[in-house]
């Protein structure tokens, strides 16, 4: 004779499936809408405050990033100081100013930048098509040192920038700014075009495509500083450009003067960025520490209220539990039904909380005239946290439900 069960496990179309379980859970919840709203609301508060907190932090850091100008934070300039009374410039920058400050800690790159006064009508590209027609907007002429391009974070569109060789040997070479190249009709440098400054021709070796500082370079014919000194009468560098590490401004400012002229360190106009702003850090830290704790506390209260209210439901629904067992429900499926119910409550609370939280972030951002930033994954995570909270909160009541003695429960009347 058989010792095991006579029947094989029934097929999906006959069995009490997960879908059936969810259906029963939904009906169980729908039977007590007041409790559903109450418990979902408790979860909603917790999830909502967490979403506001995290969403606000995301928005805030994005905002800081948007206002955080990396160019302003890293670009600096040193120039000779004019005498306030006479307007004289008694202490010119040394020719090797760039090399002197490049050695300092915190300096990423340094290069000089000088504007040279020439008769702009005498600047032209070769060949000259019509010597009578002046260029539409005559380019300026500027002199630089080899590291100037790196200092202003420039990018070449064509060819190359000057090397140390060009500077050391005062080569008759030129680099054109993007706009100057357009004005002069130079498109390519592969065929070694020339530009004329006065009667002297310079071989064009490159075209600058873009810069982040020193935008005047884009409209200029640029030559090496030593070349300008020899051929164009440059008396001294106009200004020294520096690119610094973030936050290095004050330190470099203190050392640049002595490096340029140990005898008279205070005679330069030093314009360097201030200390790094710690606004970003402080914002995220303040927001997180306070509201995350509040959100977690609210979530814990939500979980607790689910557990308490569901335990109450289990007591009231002993008859239903007994009936289900009599109809063939296993202890496990009774427990699963209660966990499913609390998970749905958690999911609802999570979704509504996420929606409320997003609205909160949008509201706060609007008040501060910020652009709200809410990661959609945050909403998904909020729903998931809600489900997990509900499931965990439902465990204890579910165990109580599974332990209900069907025989006793069924004799308790209706």
């Amino acid at each position, binding site marked *: *004779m058989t010792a*095991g069960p*006579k029947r094989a496990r029934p097929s999906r179309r006959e069995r009490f499936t997960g879908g059936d379980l969810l259906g029963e859970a939904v*009906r169980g919840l729908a039977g007590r809408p007041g409790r559903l709203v109450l418990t979902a609301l408790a979860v909603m508060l917790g999830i909502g405050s967490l979403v506001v907190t995290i969403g606000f932090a995301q928005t805030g850091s994005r905002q800081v990033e948007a206002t955080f100008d990396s160019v302003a934070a890293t670009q600096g300039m040193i120039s000779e100081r004019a005498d306030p009374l006479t307007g004289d410039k008694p202490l010119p920058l040394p020719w090797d100013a760039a090399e002197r400050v490049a050695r300092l800690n915190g300096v990423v790159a340094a290069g000089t930048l000088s504007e040279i006064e020439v008769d702009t009508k005498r600047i032209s590209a070769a060949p000259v098509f019509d010597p009578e027609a002046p260029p539409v907007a005559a380019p300026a002429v500027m002199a630089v040192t080899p590291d100037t391009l790196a200092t202003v974070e420039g990018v070449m569109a064509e060819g190359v920038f000057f090397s140390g060789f060009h500077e050391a040997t005062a080569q008759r070479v030129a680099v054109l700014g993007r706009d100057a190249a357009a004005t002069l009709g130079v498109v390519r440098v592969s065929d070694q075009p020339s530009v004329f400054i006065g009667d002297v021709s310079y071989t064009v070796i490159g075209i600058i495509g873009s810069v982040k500082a020193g935008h005047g370079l884009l409209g200029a014919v640029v030559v090496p500083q030593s070349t300008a000194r020899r051929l164009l009468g440059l008396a001294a560098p106009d200004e020294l450009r520096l690119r610094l590490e973030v936050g290095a401004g004050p330190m470099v400012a203190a050392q640049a003067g002595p490096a340029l002229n140990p005898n008279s360190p205070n005679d330069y106009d030093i314009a360097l960025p201030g200390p790094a702003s710690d606004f970003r850090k402080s914002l995220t830290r303040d927001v997180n520490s306070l509201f995350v704790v509040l959100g977690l506390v609210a979530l814990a209260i939500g979980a607790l209220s689910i557990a308490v209210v569901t335990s109450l439901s289990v007591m009231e629904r002993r008859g*239903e539990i007994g009936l*289900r067992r009599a*109809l063939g429900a296993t*202890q496990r*499926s009774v427990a699963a039904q209660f966990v499913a119910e609390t998970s749905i409550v958690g999911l609802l609370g999570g979704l509504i909380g996420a929606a409320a939280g997003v609205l909160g972030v949008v509201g706060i951002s609007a008040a501060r005239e910020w652009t709200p930033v809410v990661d959609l994954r945050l909403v998904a995570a909020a729903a998931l946290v809600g489900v997990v909270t509900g499931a965990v909160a439902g465990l204890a009541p579910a165990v109580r439900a599974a332990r209900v003695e069907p*025989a006793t429960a069924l004799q308790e009347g209706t």
Partner: protein
Amino acid sequence: MTGVDGIEPVIALEGVSRTFAGAVKVFALRDVSMRVAPGDYVSITGPSGSGKSTLLNVLGLLDRPTIGIYRLAGVDTGPLGDTARARLRAAELGFVFQGFHLMAKRTVFENVLLGMAYAPVPKAERQERVAAVLEQVSMTHRAAFFPATLSGGERQRVAVARALAKGPAVLLADEPTGNLDAQTSGEVLDLFGELNAAGQTVLVVTHDPLIAGRAARRMAMTDGRLEER
């Protein structure tokens, strides 16, 4: 195993006892043996506290004998785990309780449908079966009603329909008329008679000898002992 007359019994108890431990040990069932063949209509009477509900709980797989063998529909239930017992209960047993245990927020139709929720009945057939059993208990016209709007007798007929829907091997009823007046009790008992006449195996537990009189086989319970009259 087959019965004396060669037919496999739906229910076979052999030497079943059930004791409850406590300050004083309670012998709720003492060495009970019984057989119920397919199509039987059995009543079990006895005074309050004699062990009738305990017997029905054992038969309904809601409780286990302390000692003895219980075979349901040919299956020895002793070695079965809780899940297998739940599955056997879902497949073979229909319960009717004194308190009707209808779900207040569900219609008559949905309550009857719930009777098959855990049973091995193809889902495609369930709606039809509900309609059929509601017809059988003459409650078709109340299918969309909620239990609160029904009389006691009507509620119990819905509960009977819920138990019948899956086509159980045996219908187990514990004091099915305990909450009903004489008139409606009669209606429910008439229904049991009709069902039995149509081949349904019925086992009714009651303290009321009048009710017991309707059954073809009458058994009496006294102090945990069962004897056939």
